[in-house]
């Protein structure tokens, strides 16, 4: 177990992902959920973005807490203007790198 500490979490995550993917192919109750519930479920990916960013982006850089924050603001700005993911990411790495120097 301890030789490969990542193996179990990786496979647990894979199992969770596969379950939600396979479910609709074998069960059809998803089409008949109450309206409020299905609406909430569809909003989950958006709601997930908040906790995926905060407070991690501030805590990870400790005394340079602003470095990541300014980095992601640049990324968000570019991503809003252009429909791209990789350019904003590269830019935010550059900005954060310069702020950490």
């Amino acid at each position, binding site marked *: 177990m301890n030789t490969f500490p*990542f*193996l*179990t*979490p*990786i*496979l*647990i*995550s894979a*199992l*969770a*992902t*596969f379950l*939600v*993917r*396979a*479910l*609709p*192919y074998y069960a*059809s109750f*998803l*089409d008949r959920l109450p*309206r409020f519930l299905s*609406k*909430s*479920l*569809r*909003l*989950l*990916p*958006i*709601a*997930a*973005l*908040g*906790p*995926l*960013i*905060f*407070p*991690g*982006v501030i805590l*990870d*850089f400790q005394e340079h807490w602003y*470095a*990541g924050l300014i*980095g992601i603001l640049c*990324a*968000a700005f*570019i*991503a*809003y203007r252009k429909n791209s*993911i*990789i350019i*904003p*990411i590269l830019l*935010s*790495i550059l900005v*954060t790198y310069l702020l*950490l*120097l």
Partner: protein
Amino acid sequence: MKPETLHRLTFKQGCQEGFPIFVGYFPTAMAFGLVCRDLGMRIWEAVLFSVTNFAGSGQFLAANLIGGGALLAELFISVLLVNLRYSFMGAELNRNLEKGIRGWRKALLAHGTTDEVFSVAVLHRGPISKEYLAGLELTAYSGWVSGTAVGFLVGMILPPALQLAVGVTLYAMFSSLLAQEFHQKGFMVLAIVGVSATLNSFLILQCSLAIGWSFVISMLAASFFGALTTSDSEEVL
């Protein structure tokens, strides 16, 4: 609109339509490879991660939780929830898929469902053939898996100062996704994210709750908030 009922969608057509997804996935997967390397994984573990999960934000979340030392139960539930959208996409895809696909073929096609694959596949009006979907998914999949390996290898030659800055990758990806969602769907997105971000920060910093549970609670609370405050006529999704 092409007269698609006249011919069956082919494997080759799937690969061609999958190519733009390949191009989009490759750099994102590179970022994931870098993150895995940061966490201290070996290259085969990073590749195995992408091979078995094949889920953009789900994988980043899982890596984040693993790095934070989350319990396996927290990991399982968080990943399940963040990937729950695949159930709805799968339900829609399954309705359009040609009949008579069973067993391991069906399981493999289900494993290939992603946001991008879904949005390309459902553009076709007629029944989606298994060959077409296999081509589409395989092309996207190869971009994701190979990108992970390349990202991991690139990480080995990065200077240490740059490696710390690379830690922002994950957050930059989520904030870019957020900006695009905001662009498409308006201020409702910011309100929902504001609620979940504030709640999560509060639970972690003030209540010292474990990150996995805090994530689950804030995400659920914010989506209920969103469902309550948006009217049904608003086409948020």
